[in-house]
């Protein structure tokens, strides 16, 4: 797993790019990534290179959602591959996050 972040100060958007397996081993890196910015920030996850998510990754997404203020937060998941999107949809996470 490789994780990179990019913060756009003007738009107040944090982009987190994740590569490879998105699972429990990302826990600390992911938490560090989103908590480096203020919680009223807009979050974009670049999922292009994510090959796999497991249930603890879904849990991490919920942590981020909590951090971003629950329903008020703005979190976008970009470019999930089919397998990843399927897992997100089975859990009905498309109701909690915007999938693009």
């Amino acid at each position: 797993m490789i994780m990179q972040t990019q913060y756009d100060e003007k738009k107040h958007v944090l982009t987190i790019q994740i590569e490879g397996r998105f699972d429990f081993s990302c826990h600390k890196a992911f938490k560090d990534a989103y908590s480096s910015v203020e919680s009223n920030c807009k979050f974009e996850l670049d999922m292009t290179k994510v090959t796999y998510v497991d249930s603890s990754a879904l849990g991490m997404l919920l942590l981020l959602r909590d951090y971003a203020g629950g329903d008020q937060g703005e979190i976008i998941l970009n470019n999930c591959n089919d397998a990843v999107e399927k897992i997100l949809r089975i859990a009905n996470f498309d109701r909690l996050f915007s999938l693009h």
Partner: protein
Amino acid sequence: MSLVSLNILIADDNPSDRLLLKAMLSGLGHNVDVAEDGLEAIEKFDPEITQLVCLDVVMPDCDGLEAAIKIQEMSRGRFIPIVFLSGLSDTSSLVNCLKVGGSDFISKPYNLVLIAAKLDAIIRILSLQKKLEAQRDKLSSYNEQLIHEQEVAKVVYENITHSNCLSDPCLNTFFYGHHLFNGDVILAAYKPNGGMHLLIGDFTGHGLSAAIGALPLADIFFEWTRKGFLMRQIVPELNRRLKAILPADMFCSALFVDLNITDKTLEVWNGGLPDAFFFSQRQKKPQPLTSHNLPLGIVSESEFTYSTEIVSFEKGDSFLAWSDGIYEAIDSKGMMFCEHQLTPLVEGRVDSDNLLHWLRRKLETEGVLDSSHDDISCLKIDLSDAIGAEQESNTLTVEEPDTPSDFSFEYTLNAESLKNTDPLPYILQIIMTVSGLKHYSGQVFMMLSELYSNALEHGVLRLNSSLKETNDGFVLYYMERETRLSTLESGYIRIKISISSNEVGGILSIQLEDSGDGFDTSQVKLKLEDSDEMYNRGLPLLGQLCKSINFSEKGNRVEIQYQWDK
């Protein structure tokens, strides 16, 4: 044992060398013991005391190499360095010394500066070794304690999650977990009026942290089912409780099944688990039952959705559900298991009697079980209308004298309450305070729910049973029931209960009156054999249980008398 001053054992058959080395080492501050040959060295060696052994290579009787081997055997896993003393200088004999386990050698004639430096190096190794041993001991005692605690927790966990009816012959399950605790749960409980509630759940993560959430889940599931609560009341409660106690990143993907034997339907709530499948003998392909809800424990009560699917079953149909361990597993070619391996099953090409066997073989041959990274569990139900029908008072009965009772109460529900509450569990709880009736709670609940759903569906909501006649009729019927109930504006159901009992038995009378139009009561058939339609079974069933059934008014009031003996 101090590491600055070591307990050293020297073995050398040459008295002057022996004395010289002893003097030098003593002079460096160590405690020195001496032996004249290998045998004496072995005798004097004590793994509890000796910290360093110096052996001359060439000695009579037992030479240094032999003694070294023996001493290492006696060390019992402790690291006690052996240093060879030698006048020899050929490479092969020095290599031999190291081969049998020697740490170093000191060549004769002795050089004090070199010996002091070597001793320092040995002390460094020993102190490092000592630190490691202390850490190892600490770790292993910590681990022992942890295992002990987990074992205690496991007993509690299993008592709670397994106090269920998974052994019922209609159920088949399998479970693969690679932790002491499993993040998956399968729960099954008979409902008081026959039929069964089932839940298959998968908590985020694995091991103990995943298992913790299973405790409140199981607790509510069993308790509320036993008390006669309905699936649509239990599921939101499970969500509410898990939401309240679990940390934000933990949740439970779950599938709840209400198996109803009176009208032979299966209602399924799926929140975050992969499609479950209903195998009907009438259809070639199984019908998928898809997740329409968020898993349990994520959203608050107000956002929680209760979206279910209902199917009608016949004897011989079956139902299959699994946790996403199967779904996310990777097959031997590195592909997602679900996509490639499950296709024959999803397309109905696997014999439904053989489903679990087929699935297990698949998991084995694809090597999923060896490399699985998630718990895998699977549940199959062989459907029939006899499930849970005969489990009356199978709990141990402690014979205690029945105390007489004599009371009555009346409970009226108007439109808003009819929409939002289910009064039966509460009424049942009051009735069950009568000690003699405890053994008959299943029958009492059955009568109550039969009468109540008649009054609600046919009376207040004016639904016609003939809707149920077609194959999908039950499904249509329940959809219509939902619609009418949610738009209900007026109507009532009045429930009157009266009980009088003595030490040997008693009479329970239940009267229900509804705001409906009533019906022509002369057409009522109370004998089971008179009624071969699948939907008119309620009243004949009551007829069997009760002493009397009487309709009055225009058919919108019914009273039954139930008599019991000790």
